[in-house]
């Protein structure tokens, strides 16, 4: 999870490194820790460290981690030659290593040799059937070929064994959404919220999917989860505030003709609308009129 403080630190280091201010190794460490995808920069700065023998030997054992990081970044940037050279170095240092074998299979993947990559992963799995990352690479392989249904099948099989892997649940949810299978995606997000209840972004995604599904009950649940997102972010999430307004207006449209016995108080949406107006006033005053016309259209007035 990338918190706001960590993001600020990352951006600060990035501008510092971009302007030649040093701290490249710290930047690469932070990129690895936060698991953000900055392949191009990792490739540039990682290679400059690796090509400088004095800097490289200063890293000690971390040198090999950097080689791995640069290899993956190079594959992502389609710099096949660099990746090949890095893998060669790693192979010399660690012959017979499974981790290097995985990198080789990823190299095949980046070249687009799907059948060979599949064979390499299968042989890696034969040696060690519990290697989670290889299982995940297989899913990614199916995804790369455009075979989303196959990827979902692999991923489901994987999740039967490794149920606690929340990254995999997230990937499965995103795959289902890309196929518009929202009911299944809802289940995945429920699983994610159960495993990490304090991450507001999962609550938000869950509410989004429920709102997309529609129907009175789903809309009411979606509204609750938008509210919990607001609770967890301290009201700083604009999307959740808009979600409350949208849910309220959709619910009121659905329940127009019915009795008003289960109607909730209007405080929530008016509070959300007020918070939105305040936020817009502070950060984008020129768009305030746009916001108020939208809110008027939704019939939620602060």
């Amino acid at each position, binding site marked *: 999870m*990338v918190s706001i403080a960590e993001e600020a630190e990352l951006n600060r280091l990035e501008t510092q490194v971009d302007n030649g201010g040093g701290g490249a190794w710290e930047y690469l460490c932070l990129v690895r820790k936060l698991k953000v*995808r900055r392949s191009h920069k990792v490739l540039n700065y990682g290679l400059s460290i690796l090509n400088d023998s004095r800097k490289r030997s200063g890293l000690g054992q971390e040198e090999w981690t950097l080689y791995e990081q640069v290899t993956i970044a190079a594959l992502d940037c389609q710099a096949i030659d660099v990746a090949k050279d890095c893998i060669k*170095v790693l192979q010399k240092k660690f012959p017979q290593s499974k981790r290097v074998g995985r990198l080789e299979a990823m190299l095949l993947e980046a070249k687009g040799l799907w059948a060979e990559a599949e064979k390499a992963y299968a042989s890696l799995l034969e040696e060690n059937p519990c290697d989670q990352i290889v299982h*995940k690479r297989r899913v990614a392989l199916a995804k*790369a070929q455009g075979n989303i249904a196959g990827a979902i099948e692999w991923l489901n099989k994987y999740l039967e064994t490794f149920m606690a892997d929340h990254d*995999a649940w*997230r990937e499965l949810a995103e795959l289902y959404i890309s196929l518009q299978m929202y009911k299944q995606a809802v289940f995945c997000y429920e699983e994610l919220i159960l495993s990490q209840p304090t*991450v507001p*972004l999962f609550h938000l995604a869950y509410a989004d999917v429920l709102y997309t599904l529609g129907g009175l009950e789903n809309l009411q649940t979606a509204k609750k989860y938008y509210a919990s997102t607001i609770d967890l972010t*301290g009201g700083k999430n604009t999307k959740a505030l808009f979600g409350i307004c949208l849910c309220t207006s959709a619910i009121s449209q659905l329940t127009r003709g019915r009795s008003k016995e289960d109607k909730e108080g209007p405080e929530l949406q008016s509070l959300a609308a007020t918070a939105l107006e305040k936020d817009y006033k502070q950060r984008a005053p020129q768009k305030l009129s746009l916001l108020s016309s939208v809110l008027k259209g939704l019939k939620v007035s602060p």
Partner: protein
Amino acid sequence: MGVGFVVGLFGVLILAHAAYSTIQYRSLLKIMQEEFSGPPFHVAIELILGLVLSMWAALTVPGKFHSINPEAEENRIVSLPANQDFMVFNHRGRLFPKQTDLKLKR
């Protein structure tokens, strides 16, 4: 740090003085051949004062506390990490020109 550190030092000194006075008081009692029933009043006052001062110093000197609330501003999660285990390489970046000057030297 300066003020807090001095206050903390003062608190520890008061505690040490309280210990010293108690020992002295007990040796006095031994001479007078009386039973020890409890520390004298001024030692109790010193103990309380020392406790308050050193606690205050211990809470202020090391630095500011971080919030543990998930809704606190500095803890707010703004983005999820990229799911790198499922990274796919055949994206549109493939169509952009490669940098040919990048090379691993040995």
